[in-house]
């Protein structure tokens, strides 16, 4: 292999040490004030009444039900968002068709409307008393609003752009030459997708899935509009935190459930950082390879 000489000019910053120290110090101070301290407070407030009370709050039937509902919402909406994201990104990045720009705009819709509006939208459609389809559904014994289907539908609505938004730029930057090469070599459409397109997009896909999951579990506004916020019946974890804190005054129980969500956030952050590093490395390698 030929040796490539990298002759980067020395561009080290030469600001005085005290200035650098000051700037870094200010940045760290604000980060801790607004992020680290509140996060620590969540855990300390959760453990205020001792470890036993903490776990007791987590295994109370209302808390378990909230965890279960959040799990269901994520378990349905994340795979759906992933499937949709893959299909949308694949068609947008690899094919030319009429209405492509409209599709790209529509994908952004859930990002551009407030989740509360999204929730109201489904209330207008499905409310059993005054929704468009509500009375008919009610007659047939189907409940959507104030029930699990409503939670799932609004969660899907607010989370479905995540995977698509991650994949579209990645797939577009990768172009279609590899797919064409696979076609010439005799691969079928499915083989091209499974063997070329998907493996090339896997880190972007994983990144999108993680963001999608974080949002699905953390969504408050839209879900609160379509549920009656009843502990143990329609409360997801974020709603349960609010109910415990505002209505029941069980501060430490509220913080116990909140600490779970905070931990989910931390796990998401670590996974996100790792995948970002992988994606950056992949892009870097691709650039070096001129691929």
């Amino acid at each position, binding site marked *: *292999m030929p040796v490539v000489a990298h002759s980067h000019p020395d561009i080290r910053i030469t600001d005085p040490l005290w200035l650098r120290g000051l700037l870094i110090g200010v940045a760290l101070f604000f980060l801790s004030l607004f992020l680290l301290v509140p996060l620590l407070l969540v855990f300390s407030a959760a453990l205020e009444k001792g470890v036993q009370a903490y776990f007791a709050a987590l295994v109370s039937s209302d808390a378990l039900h909230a965890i279960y509902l959040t799990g269901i919402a994520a378990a349905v909406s994340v795979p759906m968002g992933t499937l949709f994201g893959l299909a949308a990104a694949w068609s947008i990045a690899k094919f030319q068709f009429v209405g492509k720009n409209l599709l790209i705009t529509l994908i952004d819709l859930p990002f551009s409307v407030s989740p509360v509006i999204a929730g109201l939208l489904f209330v207008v459609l499905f409310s059993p008393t005054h929704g468009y389809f509500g009375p008919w559904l009610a007659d047939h014994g189907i409940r959507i609003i104030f029930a699990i289907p409503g939670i799932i539908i609004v969660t899907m609505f607010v989370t479905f752009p995540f995977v698509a938004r991650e994949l579209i730029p990645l797939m577009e930057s990768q172009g279609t030459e590899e797919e064409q090469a696979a076609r*010439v*070599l005799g691969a079928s459409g499915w083989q091209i997708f499974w063997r070329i397109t998907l493996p090339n997009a896997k880190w972007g896909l994983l990144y999108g899935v993680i963001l999608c999951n974080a949002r699905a579990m953390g969504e408050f506004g839209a879900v609160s509009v379509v549920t009656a916020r009843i502990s143990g019946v329609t409360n997801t974890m974020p709603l349960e935190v609010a109910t415990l804190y505002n209505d029941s005054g069980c501060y430490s129980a509220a913080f116990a459930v909140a600490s779970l969500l905070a931990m989910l956030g931390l796990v998401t952050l670590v996974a996100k950082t790792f995948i970002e590093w992988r994606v950056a490395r992949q892009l870097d390698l691709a650039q070096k390879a001129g*691929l």
Partner: protein
Amino acid sequence: MSIEAQRISKTFGAFQALNDVSLTVKAGELVALLGPSGSGKTTFLRIIAGLEQPDPGSGPIKFHDEDVAKRDVGSRQVGFVFQHYALFRHLSVFENVAFGLRVRPRARRPSKDTIHAKVMELLKLVQLDVQANRYPHQLSGGQRQRVALARALAIEPKVLLLDEPFGALDARVRQELRQWLRRLHDEIHLTSVFVTHDQDEAMELADRVLVMNEGRIEQLGTPDEVFHNPKTEFVMNFLGQVNQFHGRVEGGKIHFATLSVDAPHSAVSPSQQVRVFVRPHDLEIETHRNGHPAFPAVITRVHSAGPNVRIELRANTGELLQAEMPQDRYRALGISIDSQVFVSPRSVKVFGQEQGVFGHGEGI
């Protein structure tokens, strides 16, 4: 296996990329599609491969007398080498080459051992067997190019099509790979078509060259034919340096740059405006008049680094000219910048004002 593509046209929206182009490639032949960017050469190659569909009304595309125009690209069994290689970035060199065999339907898929043997044989052929477990980003440009070639050959293609195969490589690697590809072609005798905008590449590598411009064929011939007997002004201009004069045909003579030379027989009708072309190596430079028709000029620049010396001159009629001569000839003349010299064309090509109407000819 021969290739025949008849009356191929292709339009993208309002842009006509190909206009009634036909080509027959004999079995075992290596043909270059040569032209500037936008001349339609890549589109033509992609249509032969099946990556693009020709316009309705185009003629057949035949591989060994079998019409494949209706066949899908995957079933045409063509080896295609992409300009930027299009290697599968997440697969090793070995898996890249094996891909075409692995995706075959079960009934036609070779056994694991057969695939392994076949891939290693191909990697030996392209001298990359040691790199089998590397990934594309770990290879140099020339190595990637060879992986792309091995991958294309793995499916035992009927024809090999290469799109600007050396376009992305630096000059030295390009030269090496060019000679290597020619030797490989002489070894395996696979009917091949490659696209290039580099005339030297086409001349050195190809058995025949198809010169294209603006979606049309300008000329098809051996490298010798297209270089020495260009059929059109475009070919004359595109293949190497030329000096151009505006001239006039009158009384069987061509008048240009204060010279009158005998018009080539049958070349042009009388009293016509013509363009006269002279290659730099056909411009003879003398320090004194010696009886040949010559016009005075002043040397403005000399490039002597290289096998030949390139000299830029200004004729007394104002034209800027280029001449080329061997080093010893240059030294014998004893000329340098600002020297007054006499220039006489050894051979000229004449094209009529309306290209193709008045024909062309050669004189002196």
